[in-house]
């Protein structure tokens, strides 16, 4: 029994131990995807949400389900379709008859009222329905018929994207993309991983996931760990480094940012990026770096933490132009160039 379990504030060591424990439980079911699982958990403890992108069959839904089971938190899944309405996810007022026979309007909570929400193939719903998630993700509240309903923390939204079936889909608007802390890419498994997947899933027994926390203490424990993350210290020079990195994703000629007098100019950005990361990108860098610092047993953020978290935090915030698509340049390449350009400016 560690200190955190006994009701005390968790320590740095508790955090790292709990994190690795959750990770190990998930990997009982999920084969491979070590980096994706780690980034998923980092986003969870950094109080963010995750967009998961991967081709069909790579275990997106399984990953999210397994996380819910391991954390022993309430878990809901919404399959986004083109005819899904906002009220279908937020909830609506319905007429219910009481025991005394009286009928009255009562708020029926939608699937967003949970701790972990999986929005499967979110790009298949209309933008109106997609935007219904905005308030939940950003403010942990839902407003229906003028009444605001609070969501219980921890609240963690994972949305999946299928990158190959684009017909009849509605790409997520930039404003909604920006609200996801990380974009995690699930790669296609290699041969050995695929053999292991087949072995695990075609046998008589499924691999069981042991919950890390009890139902009663799960939310509190996770919130305690999230609070510890915010206590991690960041030197000013490192905050400047993160800000510099985010500014470097903006093309120098962008009319939205004015003159980047002191900014770095990255050729690839100027050539292929139409709009770069917002200040939320810097927040994502710092929060993700704090979790990485705790995992490394430190109470302070290092430059290396920022560099490691940059691809997940900045990729989906960089809007590429037509030249990038025609030249086969993706956002990961741009972020890599940005990190290379900013690295020499460390203090």
């Amino acid at each position, binding site marked *: 029994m560690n200190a955190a379990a006994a009701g005390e*504030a968790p*320590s*740095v060591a508790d955090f790292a131990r709990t994190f690795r424990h959750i990770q190990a439980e998930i990997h009982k079911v999920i084969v491979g995807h070590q980096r994706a699982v780690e980034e998923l958990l980092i986003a969870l403890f950094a109080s963010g949400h995750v967009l998961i992108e991967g081709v069909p069959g790579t275990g997106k839904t399984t990953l999210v389900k397994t996380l819910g089971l391991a954390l022993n938190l309430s878990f809901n899944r919404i399959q986004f379709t083109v005819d899904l309405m906002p009220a279908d996810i937020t909830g609506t007022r319905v007429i219910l008859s009481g025991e005394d026979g009286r009928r009255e309007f009562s708020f029926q909570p939608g699937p967003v009222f949970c701790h972990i929400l999986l929005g499967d193939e979110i790009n298949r719903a209309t933008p109106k329905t997609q935007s219904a998630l905005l308030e939940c993700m950003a403010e942990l509240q839902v407003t229906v018929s003028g009444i605001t309903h609070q969501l219980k923390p921890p609240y963690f939204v994972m949305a999946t994207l299928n990158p190959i079936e684009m017909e009849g889909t509605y790409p997520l608007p930039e404003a909604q993309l920006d609200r996801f802390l990380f974009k995690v890419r699930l790669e296609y498994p290699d041969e050995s991983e695929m053999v292991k997947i087949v072995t695990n899933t075609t046998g008589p027994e499924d691999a069981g996931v042991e919950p890390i926390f009890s139902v009663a203490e799960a939310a509190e424990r996770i919130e305690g760990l999230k609070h*510890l993350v915010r*206590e*991690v*210290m*960041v*030197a*000013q*020079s*490192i905050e400047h480094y993160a800000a510099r990195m985010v500014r470097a994703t903006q093309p120098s000629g962008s009319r939205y940012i004015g003159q980047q007098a002191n900014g770095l100019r990255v050729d690839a950005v100027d050539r292929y990026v139409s709009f770069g990361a917002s200040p939320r990108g810097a927040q994502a860098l710092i929060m993700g770096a704090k979790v990485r610092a705790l995992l*490394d*047993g*430190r*109470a*302070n*953020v*290092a*430059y*290396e933490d920022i560099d490691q978290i940059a691809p997940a935090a900045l990729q989906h915030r960089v809007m590429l132009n037509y030249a990038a698509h025609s030249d086969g340049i993706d956002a990961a390449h741009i972020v890599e160039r940005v990190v290379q350009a900013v690295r020499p400016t*460390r*203090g």
Partner: protein
Amino acid sequence: MDYQAAQARGEDKFRLILGQVGSIRSRLNALALQQGLFAPLTFILCAIVLILGAAFAFGPLTFLLLAAAVAIVAIAGVVRMTRAAWRMRTSDERAARIADERAALKGRLTTMVDGARLEQRSALWPYLIEDTLALRDEFAAARIEPRRVSRWLWAAIASCAVAAVAMRVAYGVRTSRLTANNRVASIPGEPSVDLGDLDIRPADPSLEPGTEIDADPATLRKLAEKLREAQSGAPKGSPASRLMANARDAAKALQNKLTGSPAAEPAPRLKLTDRKGGSEGKSPGKSQDQARAKGAQESPQNSDNGQQQAEQNAAQPNGGPTPGVPDMSGLAALNGLNNDDPDPNGSPGQNTPPDSRKVPQGGPLGAGGSDHGSGSDPQHLYGDAEKPPLGNDTFKIPVEVAPSEDGSSNTAPPSPPQRTRSALNANQAPDEPFERASIPASDRVTIKRVFER
């Protein structure tokens, strides 16, 4: 109580860490200071050695260019090194960053130094202190920066040694040259030349000042007229060439100071005669030969330059000729004679101070000049004049006195052929002296008689 004690212990540990960061900063700043002192010194000493070497090895123009280039490089180097040293100075924050980087502390020290300014510290602050203190050996000052002495110190010592050797050698060479120059300057000589044989034309402005001329006033007046004709008829040098000449003069003067070379060739003394005028030289052929011999050594002087300098000298009546600057008082007096003095028989030197006048009677100036100097003046043929009729008939005028075929006298001998040396062919043998034959005793009386006759 326990909490306060724990907090005090934490502050002590924190101060310990900050003290270690401070020692890193001190060490880095000491290195920066050393670089700021020794790097410029190294550059300056190297520049001095190079300029000194160039003064001995090259001519004035090359020396000028090299010295300028070396000086520019040295100044740029000094400025750059000083700026680099200034940038190297370190604050606590920078020392912490450097220590973090060199000891792979992943920002622990930087965060601590930053956190020192915060009033409200994080809940993880004690953990950070303990965590950093555990790595105390990693960021010891000697480990972060092992050097106490900058590399520039060794460079400065080496350059000091080289400069000392170079200066010692230069001093020796300079002393020997000065001794040799004094010996050469003491050799007397005063050839004579006929005015009619002089070819007067503007000389290269870069050349050295020329000859001191002694002559009677009439001859000098004619010489002044010839000078004026030459100045008015010949194109003057372009401003660029005059600038170049001045620069070369300056370089030469500096070079002479450094190397101990004579500031200028000792001006040959020349007595000028005018066979066509009232004064007749006794042996113009002899004086022409002497002039030719001297003229081959002397450096012609631009008449423009000479006149400017004469005016400068006239503007400084009490100042004698400075070393390296020709004495132009004669020309100034000459100009006064021809232009300013209404009385042609009056004293042209009345406007010049008596110090600048030189009377060619007796003394070293008259040495060897009894045939050609004052004797060329008909009034003084039979003795010294009691009083010079014109007040001053001795001038120093820089002129070119090299013999030329274009001279005004048809009797002037042609220039001597240039000596050439060609290789002998297979059928030729070098000259060998005849063996000295002994004189027979019977012929000795006859030979002696011939020589006696």
